[in-house]
């Protein structure tokens, strides 16, 4: 019981995730700055932002539905932390696993988007309602490619448990070459979920001020920012566990080091894509996702089905 509490609250649960979320944000912002030929914020900037925000007063518009609005950041943070408990880190076995947990992880990662929508809608300000509606429209665009890409490798592995899938792929490492298209699609769809450029449409600063987060301030805004950082780590860990199953079988030191390297690699890719493209419009984004990414994700499913058939696994 006590070890369970330790796992959930400290490692690899809440505290570990919050701290590694700050580290991920530091790396992202520093790298973004260096790619743009400037120095960037100091390494402790995310912690300083968090501490400053906690100390500020919370003000909400009079027409806002304050209990719902204050509940949403807590819901978002809870869901992403819970999703992390099912992802294998350094070894093949995650903290808790059961058959079908990969579906639960993906659904748990969808709930924060709904919480951005509800938080923005019930803030009742023009900018937040526009941002909330855009967040839901964006959900319709990237969700299908993300689901298909994450679930395609399970076809070969014959299981819907993430831990068993990691075990299967670490025993047959060459089979993950079939999943390259899925890897690229899932990185881009993950950027859609995390609302990073070119998909940061719900939070477009120059169009709708801050989207759903416009009327948030103080502690609840700090929690929202923490939940976005944690969602980055959780999404990157999910993609790493599904598509990059290396280093799972060689003991916990090499496993931890390879986990850190994998997360760093995925964050590096996301920051790089963020630097070199402009933001899209919402109609262009839906066009792009349904015309390019969904067919490629379907292609990935087809490749896996054919591989399963002809390699008779």
């Amino acid at each position, binding site marked *: 019981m006590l070890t369970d509490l330790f796992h959930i609250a400290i490692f690899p649960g809440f505290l570990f995730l919050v701290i590694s979320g700050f580290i991920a944000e530091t790396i992202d912002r520093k790298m973004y700055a*260096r*790619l*743009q*030929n*400037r*120095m960037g914020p100091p390494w402790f900037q995310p912690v300083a932002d968090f501490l400053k925000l906690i100390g500020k007063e919370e003000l909400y518009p009079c027409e806002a539905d304050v209990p719902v609005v204050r509940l949403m950041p807590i819901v978002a943070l809870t869901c992403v932390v819970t999703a992390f408990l099912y992802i294998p880190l350094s070894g093949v076995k995650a903290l808790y696993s059961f058959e079908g947990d990969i579906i639960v992880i993906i659904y748990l990662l969808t709930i924060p988007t709904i919480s951005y929508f509800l938080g923005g809608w019930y803030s009742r300000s023009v900018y937040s309602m526009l941002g909330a509606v855009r967040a839901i429209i964006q959900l319709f665009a990237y969700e299908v490619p993300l689901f298909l890409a994450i679930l395609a490798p399970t076809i070969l592995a014959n299981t819907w448990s993430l831990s068993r899938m990691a075990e299967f792929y670490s025993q047959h490492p060459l089979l993950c070459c079939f999943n390259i298209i899925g890897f690229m699609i899932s990185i881009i769809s993950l950027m859609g979920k995390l609302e990073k450029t070119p998909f940061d449409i719900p939070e477009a600063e120059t169009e709708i001020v801050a989207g759903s987060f416009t009327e948030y301030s103080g502690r609840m805004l700090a929690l929202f920012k923490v939940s976005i950082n944690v969602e980055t780590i959780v999404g990157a860990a999910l993609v790493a566990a599904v598509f990059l199953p290396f280093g799972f079988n060689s003991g916990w030191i090499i496993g931890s080091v390879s986990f850190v390297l994998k997360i760093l690699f995925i964050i590096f890719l996301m920051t*790089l*894509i963020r630097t*070199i*493209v402009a933001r899209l419009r919402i109609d262009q984004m839906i066009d792009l996702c349904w015309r390019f990414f969904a067919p490629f994700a379907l292609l990935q499913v087809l490749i896996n089905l054919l591989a399963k058939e002809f390699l008779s696994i």
Partner: protein
Amino acid sequence: MIRPGKALKMVLEYIFKKPATINYPHDKAAMPPKFRGKLSFDASKCVGCKMCMKDCPSGAITIKKVGEKSFQAEMDLAKCIYCAQCVDSCFKKALSISQEFELAQIDRKKLVVLLDNSNAESDKK
């Protein structure tokens, strides 16, 4: 050929180059010699004609008589627009510009200062 990510090559090159920004206020940038910063005043050359006061667009400089043929220049740094017209108007060349620009204060009264001859360079044309 229109493709995404045209900036990729240039962006990756910058990982290995020095950043173009400096860590102000720890590292400071130097201003060139003609930079128009705070004024400096040579009381030995002033004759009290008050041409500088007449030509100042914002009424920032005030010449006060403190003795026989001896004058003081009082400047309101908040009103000065650092145009250096007074430097051009003074035919005795008593005023000149220094490169000092970090003049911010929290208390507005501290911005009314007496000019001194801290920067003895005459202005360069």
